[in-house]
């Protein structure tokens, strides 16, 4: 949500507004004008008042007029739309680069120094260039407050950019339908002052959403948040798309391995395998191919932390 007062949230708000209100204004004018004319005719030439119609098969001059005027209006509308769109393609050279990785059903953002975050944290008044990467299907990164959106197409390099002009938190949605939890695929844009940002970015020890709590597995949880595991796995027993983490560790369960069912015990090795080769063992009752491999994205050390977190979820 955004406010319509004060400075614009991004540089693209004004170009959008020009194009939108120009067309909307003309449209509203024509809509009212034509509707009133129609109603007026219907009253004035009602059968009761106007018994016999006066035949008139057409008028060339009128036809030419009402072809020419819409053509001119339409070309003007096109022009504003195009002018407003052009800057979208011109990424400033001094822009800060962030890479977003979209997957079913989460975004994660990686900065040039390797820091990863589940929210898009950016300094105010600095152009931001976003490299768009999708690991599975088409997603679309949409920031309503900034009036921009760009599809994230797997297998294709794309960038988008914007200039945040005001501090604050803004919603970031996935705007291309991508499956079951499409409507939950969202994040935040957090615009903070340049100083705060520098401090935040420099601090690579804590991750963006990590709280420095001391409960066991806290770190594992924040790794999973950034990696987007929680889009499919819950920690409270509900089934989202994948199995829940609640009471997972140490559990006995049936998996399909190469087409045959085997019963396994969930231990550290199995969890590691589940993360690196998710399609090797498919938990019974769940679809194959949804979970992608995280090989190379999660280190062994991080897996240990994840397991620690999973263990913490076992009810005594």
């Amino acid at each position, binding site marked *: 949500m955004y406010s319509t007062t004060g400075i614009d949230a991004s540089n693209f708000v004004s170009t959008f507004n020009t194009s939108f209100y120009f067309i909307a204004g003309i449209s509203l004018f024509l809509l009212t004008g034509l509707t009133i004319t129609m109603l007026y005719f219907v009253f004035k*030439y009602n059968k009761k008042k*106007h018994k016999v119609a006066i035949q008139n098969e057409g008028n060339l001059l009128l036809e030419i007029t009402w072809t020419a005027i819409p053509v001119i209006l*339409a070309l003007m509308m096109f022009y504003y739309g*195009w002018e407003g769109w052009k800057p979208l393609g011109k990424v400033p050279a001094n822009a800060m680069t962030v890479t977003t990785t979209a997957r079913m059903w989460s975004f994660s953002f990686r900065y040039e120094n390797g820091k990863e975050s589940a929210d898009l944290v950016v300094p105010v008044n600095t152009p931001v260039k976003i490299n768009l990467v999708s690991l599975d299907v088409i997603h679309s990164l949409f920031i309503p407050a900034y009036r921009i959106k760009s599809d994230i*197409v797997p297998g294709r390099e794309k960038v988008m950019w914007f200039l945040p002009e005001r501090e604050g938190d803004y*919603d970031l949605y996935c705007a291309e339908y991508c499956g079951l939890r499409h409507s939950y695929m969202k994040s935040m844009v957090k615009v903070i002052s340049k100083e705060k940002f520098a401090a935040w970015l420099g601090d690579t020890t804590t991750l963006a959403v990590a709280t420095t709590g001391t409960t066991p597995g806290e770190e594992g949880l924040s790794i999973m948040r950034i990696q987007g595991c929680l889009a499919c796995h819950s920690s409270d027993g509900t089934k989202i798309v994948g199995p829940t983490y609640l009471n997972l560790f140490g559990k006995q369960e049936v998996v399909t391995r190469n087409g045959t069912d085997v019963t396994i015990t969930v231990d550290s090795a199995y969890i590691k395998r589940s993360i690196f080769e998710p399609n090797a063992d498919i938990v019974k009752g769940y679809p194959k191919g949804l979970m992608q491999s995280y090989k190379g994205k999660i280190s062994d050390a991080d897996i240990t932390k994840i397991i620690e977190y999973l263990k913490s979820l076992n009810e005594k």
Partner: protein
Amino acid sequence: MIYQKDTAEPSYLDYKGKYKGIFSWIFSTDHKRIALLYMFSILTFFAIGATLGLLMKFELIAPGRTIMSAQAYNAFFTLHGIIMIFAVVIPGLPAVFGNFLLPIMIGAKDVAFPRINLLSWYLYVTGVSLVVISQFTGQGPPDTGWTFYAPYSFRTAGNMLPAVFGAFVLGFSSILTGLNFLVTIHRMRAPGMTWLKMPLFPWTLYATGWVQLLATPIIGITLLMIVAERTLHIGFFDPTLGGDPLLYQHLFWTYSHPAVYIMILPAMGAISEIITTYSHKAIFGYKFMIASVLAIAFVGYFIWGHHMFTSGMSGTALYTFSLLTFIVAVPSAIKVFNWIATMHQGSIDLQTPFYWAMAFLFVFMIGGFSGLILGSLAANVHLHNTHFVVAHFHFIVFGGTGFAFFGAMHYWYPKITGRMYDTRWANIGLVLFFIGFITLYGPMFYLGFKGMPRRYYDYDEVFHAGNIVSTMGSWVLYSGLVIIVINLFASLKSKIKAPSDPWGGKTLEWTIPSPPPVENFEEIPTVTKGPYNYS
């Protein structure tokens, strides 16, 4: 139902052919009976699709889960979209009113290929059944939206194949209808009916026929490629195999944009007939009306890219498509102006169909104008895939084609059934329908402008208020529709028989009895005057 005949020739409803009962319908090759077969099947599927829409609106009345799971919601809008587009509005006016009236309006006894006509109805029923069956079989219902975007459409576990194949069969049915009409118009006009003496409704069917014929095969092959992709993993649209998902979108919209003109052109034709008849005045700018129909059909073929503005097309493609999108709006503008000019100095008889036409004009303009906003590059970047688009197309598809369908239903009802309906209830239904319509879809413009994406099962609290209003609108709409439908059914038993020309229309269908005799014309008329000769 008992129908009285008022001529020596039995009416098509009374005619006793080789078969009895239901078989006298489903084996009939009479274009009028086939039209009614279509009418009942389309209304049935409309009821299914509309109920899904109603349920979706229930779900959206509050954030979070209200009545269904996310899985169900996704399946619902997919099925709703497929049914409404492929099974209701694309066949809608051509298959029902086109089938019934095209031969009569051009002075022919039937369409050129009556048996193919029946075949296309069978294909239609098969196609929709496949789509509906896909919901209940396999590994869960298809959940891709009616656009079947790759690569999701071959990743999902949903039961895609029957749905896609069903859409393919529906496309085939649509091609056959279009082909039949084209040949009928080319070859079977009554003596003396030159191209420029043909009424506008057949003209729009003619243009539509070409679009059906030349655009539908593209979706056919695209859907086949999706099938091949899912079964053989060819890699046409799979980025990991080198394919390009955007190419799928190009192909899909190469059909599906022209398809929106398949939906609207016959609607425009029906509205033209209604407006002249009740104004008792020849259509203003007859030739320009024809030219604009042909222009829409032609230019409409080349603007598909406006559905892909944010997908990362090249700049050149973007502005070509945007420019052409604006150009295609101009012929629609010409039509609107000519319709209103037709009312000028007319002698307007305010009957129910005319109210429908007025309502049509109003919502069509809103839908069209919102289309212009979407066609603008800068605005589209924000509004694409939000509820603004949902509002646009409901206004123009439902408001345009849907309103024209109901208008045509009330206009030709006496001709088709031989009875008059109760005007008062028809008007009450219409008013409720209209109010409900605006309350249902109006707020969606606002929601979309504020950034609520479409195909969202759940949404943030900020969008709550708009959704409540919208959902309540759907109930008003619903009550209006129920009144309209009940009224039309009840009037079948009405005692008031329809004369052959209840409204003072001038086209050929009003010269024969209501309901028409089996052979339409005792003697094929010879046409000497233009279609709208009121002087």
